[in-house]
Every structure is written in C-alpha cells, then in structure tokens.
C-alpha cells in the first residue's frame, strides 16, 4: 500500500489499485471468519435456541421450534421482571455515580501535576483486579461477624452492633453498588483523563482571560469538549453493568431472597444449573435487547443534553 496518509480520503481511495483492494479483503478474510465463528454464530444460535424448545439428550441438543413460548414464560414470570428491574436500576445508579465521580477525580488528577503518575497507578489497582478476586475481598470487608468495615465503624463509635451488610435487601444492594463503583470508577477516570489531555490549553486560557470562573470554564469549555469521552465511558459501563454477574455471584448469590438477582445470574441459573437452554437463551437475548435499548437511549439523552447546553 502506498501510504495513503493524505488528508483527503478520496485521494487515498483512488490511489488504491483494484488488485490491492481484493488482496486486502483476502487478507482480512481469516480474521473475519474467526469473528463470525466465535461471535456471530453463538449470538445467532442463541437467538435461534430462544425460539425453540431445547432438550439435551444422549444424541445432543434437540431443538423443536416453539415460537415465542420461551418469551411467554419470561413475560409471565415475576422472578424475571424482578431481575429486569434490579438490573436496570443497578446499572443506572452505578453508571451515573461512576461518571460523576470519575470526572471529578480525573479533573483533580489533571490539576495535581506532581503526583499524576502515582495517582494513576493507585487508581488503576481496583480496575486491574479481577472482579471475582475483588468481590471475595469485599465479602470479607462486609462480613457481619469479623468484617473489617464493622470493626472500623465500631472503633470509630459510628455503630454500636455489627451490621449485616449483605443481609437485608436494601443494604445488600447498596453495598454491592459501592463495591462496583470502587472497582469501575477508575475506568471512567482513565477515559476522561484522556479526553482532558486532548483539550488545547489555549481554550482554558482564553476563557479565563474573558473572565470566566472555574464553574463556567467547566460547564462551557471542558464539559462540551469531554462529551465524546464521557459518552464512550458511559457506553462501555452500561454494557458491562447490564451484564453484572461476578459481584452478586460471589457476594450474595442473588440474595437475600432474590434482591440482587441480576439478569445474568438468572440466565446462568437457568442455563447451567437447571439446564433449561431455551428459557436461558431467551433471558440472554432479552438482556441484549435491553442493553441495546439502554445504549441508544443513553446516547440520545446525552447528545440532546450536551447540544442543549452548548447551544
């Protein structure tokens, strides 16, 4: 290829010979096939499974087309709707808090030049831990008998008796959200920090010269220019938050009762404990639809918000 690093993309296109283009596709083909095999096929197959009655027999999986029967089961199941509700509000609360907190921390790190490297490293520790590992750690922190959190709060005389952090529905949900926010805020920080560094310093100078205060600079300069980074961070976080599995799996197994039973936990239970592959696939597909909807909604709300403000 003859280095098409030209500003006009049309020029680059024209400079590619037809033969080059074909060989390009040929070179891409293997990786496309791999992507199809490991991504596209399983997705389509689980959509197909969700429309079938699936029985596992000694001859393998037996599929019998059943239309929307599996979805019909879901729609009439209180357990399913409870999981949908939990997953939705869990995602909204954690992602919102993470975006706000992450932006604030990124702004702070940006301004504390001296300790930037160290702050970044410290920030990255929670993010780099495998969720299951950090969840185990949190389960010790929250333990109602010998947990560190109780010991700390008791030493500070903030609580009299130990609190069972994971023992009542509200506390369990809040505790789990705290663990999630602790772990994934650094992700938002990194993305936002990247965005901040791309804003030319002259913009801030110009704003200050014009007499803008800190808040005005943030709201009229920084925030609008960060929207790309924030949208990206938000999207990634929503995608992950809707699939939340490790934390409830380790901390509560969906309990108390089914207070923290996310869609992913419900799906795993259906697929791999109950071996009900049809219903389990329907849960998985519903989750995908829900996530897609949530992402589109987030983008449109976010864009109109930013547009409204910057206009």
């Amino acid at each position, binding site marked *: 290829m003859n280095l098409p690093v030209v500003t006009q993309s049309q020029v680059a296109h024209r400079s590619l010979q037809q033969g080059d283009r074909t060989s390009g596709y040929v070179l891409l083909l293997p990786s496309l096939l791999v992507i199809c095999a490991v991504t596209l096929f399983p997705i389509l197959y689980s959509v197909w499974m969700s429309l079938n009655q699936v029985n596992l027999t000694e001859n393998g999986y037996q599929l019998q087309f059943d239309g929307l029967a599996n979805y019909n089961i879901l729609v009439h199941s209180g357990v399913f709707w409870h999981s949908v509700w939990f997953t939705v509000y869990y995602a909204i609360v954690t992602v919102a808090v993470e975006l706000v907190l992450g932006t604030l921390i990124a702004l702070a790190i940006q301004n504390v030049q001296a300790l930037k490297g160290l702050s970044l490293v410290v920030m990255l520790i929670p993010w780099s831990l495998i969720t299951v590992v950090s969840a185990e750690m949190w389960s010790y922190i929250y333990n109602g008998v010998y947990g560190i959190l109780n010991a700390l709060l008791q030493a500070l005389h903030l609580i009299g008796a130990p609190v069972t952090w994971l023992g009542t529905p509200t506390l369990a949900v809040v505790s789990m959200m705290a663990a999630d926010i602790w772990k994934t805020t650094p992700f938002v920080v990194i993305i936002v920090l990247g965005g901040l560094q791309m804003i030319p310093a002259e913009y801030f100078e110009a704003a200050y010269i014009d007499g803008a205060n800190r808040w005005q600079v943030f709201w009229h300069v920084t925030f609008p220019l960060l929207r790309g980074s924030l949208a990206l961070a938000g999207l990634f976080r929503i995608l992950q938050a809707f699939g939340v599995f490790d934390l409830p799996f380790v901390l509560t197994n969906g309990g*108390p009762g089914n207070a923290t039973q996310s869609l992913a936990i419900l799906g795993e239970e259906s697929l791999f404990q109950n071996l009900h592959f049809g219903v389990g696939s329907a849960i998985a597909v519903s989750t995908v639809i829900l996530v897609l909807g949530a992402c589109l909604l987030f983008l449109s709300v976010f864009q109109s918000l930013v547009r409204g403000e910057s206009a």
Partner: protein
Amino acid sequence: MKKKASKTWWHTGTAVVLGTGLLAGCGGASGNSQGEGNSSGGGNGSSVVDYSHASGQIVFAASPVGNGNQNIIPILVQQFEKSHPDIKVQLVNQSTDTDTNRASLTTQIGGGSATPDVYMGDVVWPAQFAASGLAEPLSKVLPSSFWNRFSNGLVSGATYKGQVYAAPFFVDSSFLYYRKDLLDKAHLPVPTSWEQVQQESEQLQKQGLVKYGFVWQGASYEGLTCDFMEFLTDAGGKVLDSSGKAALDSPEANKALTFMKGLVDSGVSPKSEVTFQEPQAEDAFLQGSAAFLRNWSYAWNDSQNPSTSKVVGKVGVTVLPTFGGGGGYSYVGGWDLYVNPHTKNMAAALAFIDWMTGTEGQKILSQLEIPTNASVASDPSVQSKNPIYALASKTHYVSRPVQSSNYPQISQAIYTNVNAVLAGSESVADALKKAQQQIAQVQSSGGGL
C-alpha cells in the same frame, strides 16, 4: 482455601431430599436396587460389559477431595494404575465449585465429547443428568451383583426411572458440633432437641461464656435448602407429597421456618446468619465465637487442626437433634462416579469404577471420607479413625424418594424464600405460600423459570 473446600461441600450436602422417606423407606433400597439390576440385567443380558480384560486409556474428571492442599484423587488413580497396568488414567482436575463443574461437564458431554470417560459428580445430579442424556445407565452395563457392595439406601439415591446412573463414591452427612468445655462449665447436657439447643445457647450467652449460640447455613444458596430440609423433616413436614405435588404450605413447614427465624431473632444465631455458607459458620465456631455448629463431616478434621481451629480438644460431635428430642435427620450428601454415555472405552471405565468403589479404593478413600462400600464402612479399623464414622451409622437420613429432574429449581424456590424470611423481608406464611406456588409451577410445567 476454606471457601474452596466449602464450595465442594455445600453441594455435597444437597442430596436432596424432597419428601418423605427415611432410610427405612430405602431400607429396601439395596434389595430394591438388586431387583432393578435383575430386571434390567434380565432384559439386556447381552449388554453387560465384561471388563476383566479392559485396557487402554480413560480420562477421569474430578474435583479435588481432601482438606486444604491435600488431594486424595491422584493417589487413588496411581494405585489403580498399579493394579491395572493395562489401563492408563488421565486425571482432569475439575472446579471445586459444583455449579461450575456441572456447567463444564454439561457443555462437554452435551456437545458429544467422548471424554471425560468417567467423572465424579454430586449425589443430586442423577435425575437431571439421566434426563439430559449426560450419564450412562450403569445398571445396563454392570451385573446386578455389582450393587450389593454399597451401604443401604445409597443406590436408590442414584436411581432414576428404574435405572442406576451412578456408582456411590463417598457419602457425607451433617452433624451437631458442640463445645464440650462450655457445656461442662455451665453443667449442661449435650442437647438432643432443637429446643434444647436454643435454651442452652441462651444460657451460655447470658452467662457470657460465648458470643453466639448456634451457627448454621442461612445464605441464599443450596446449603440453606439442606438446613431447612432437616428442620422440616424433624417437624414432620415434606416438600412434595406422595403424588409429587407441592406440600410446603403446611403447619409443619411453618413450625420449622418459625423456629429458624426465631434463632436469628432471639440472637442465638447472629444477625449475619443470613449470609453464612459453610465457611462463615465454621469460622465462627472454630474461632470460639459460637457454642454449636451444624456442618458436614469435614468440620471434624478442621476442628482438630491447630492451624485452622482455636478450639482443638474442646469440640464434641453428635447426631443432629430434632424437635422434642431423639436423633434428627441429616441430608445425604456425597459424590458419585458417572460414566459418559459417549465413552469409547466402556470396559476400562467400568473397571475403574469397580476398583474405586471396591475395598481397595474405598480403604484409601476412608482416610478422608466416609466410604460407600459397606464392608469397608463397617471395618473396625476404619471406624476407629474418626468419631464421625461411628456416628454416621446412627444418623437418620432424609432420602429422596421423589427424584425430580427439576430439582435445582425446587431448591431455588426453597432457599430464596427461606432466606427472605431470615432476612426479615418476608413473613413465614407468605414465604411458604410463595415457595409452594413456585414449586407447583415447576412440577406442572416441568421447566420454565
């Protein structure tokens, strides 16, 4: 480490017991299984496989069995290979988490893989695995005499629709562990009733001898189903009636659940009981914070180990109490050996199972677990190793006469609702009604959610 061990163990406990029968009911079980063996053997006489000259290679998938870093499985495999030089066994270590283990076996065997040829699986799996074609019906390929070696009741637990799908490998049951020193100090007898456990706990706590009275498994998971089922059977209740219909919304179930809730509400059990799986309950006891513990047999070894226990030498163990006194019921837990229906070396697989459940293999296993082979289990030299083994023969087991391939869902209906009661977010009556409804739905639709 603890967590790992427990994850293996809590499912071990699941040997579910949906209903009525006592071991008495299964007393006929070994006879029963013989009958079954005969009938299938008679029907398919030619399909019995002769494995006396088996050779070749097999793959054996098993989770580690033992305490801490100890794993007895490789030792067993090594000894087997020594006595069968023509057979090579490749050991694949499975996850210690039962559900992960099940998921990987389901994916592999359900996908048609010929390996693992033999796998170790939970005693609660036979019905589900049989219905899903994940386990070979062993009664078709083994002579009926094979099943005579096992202790009473065990074979019926591995039977589904008249065929035996697994060979019992080792058993487990639950016990009441107590602090000898505390009971002596307060001049209290070893309790034989649940009421006594509660009263003595309150007294010990009042005297300031111990922080908590009784710790058990109350988290929202399979282990809670085990604990609840024991209380329920003690109270005379059942999950399913004899026709397989949900029978959980009963005065007996109400009594059992009210008692469990009372333990938490009165402070006899800690508030965090609702988050306790085996390791948390065991830790509380081994650190000296509780007077009584309900746990599986492995807790005995842990309590005698100074590196994990602060109460070495102060622990006693007895059969579980019941309401009003007398021996209570224990869930049957343990692990079985299954054969992959797609195996390419049935003869070697069977030779392996024969040896592992025979006297030689079971004697080695008995260093750590309660053997399923009756002659090994009753061997005085084996019994003298561990006080648990002698108690095991005095334990009443809740057997599982109703074998539902939807057991996991029935159990989920039980533990989520019972846990909600313990956490105070639902009343006893409402929770039982809800569990009843969910179980009825599972039984009628045979699937769904």
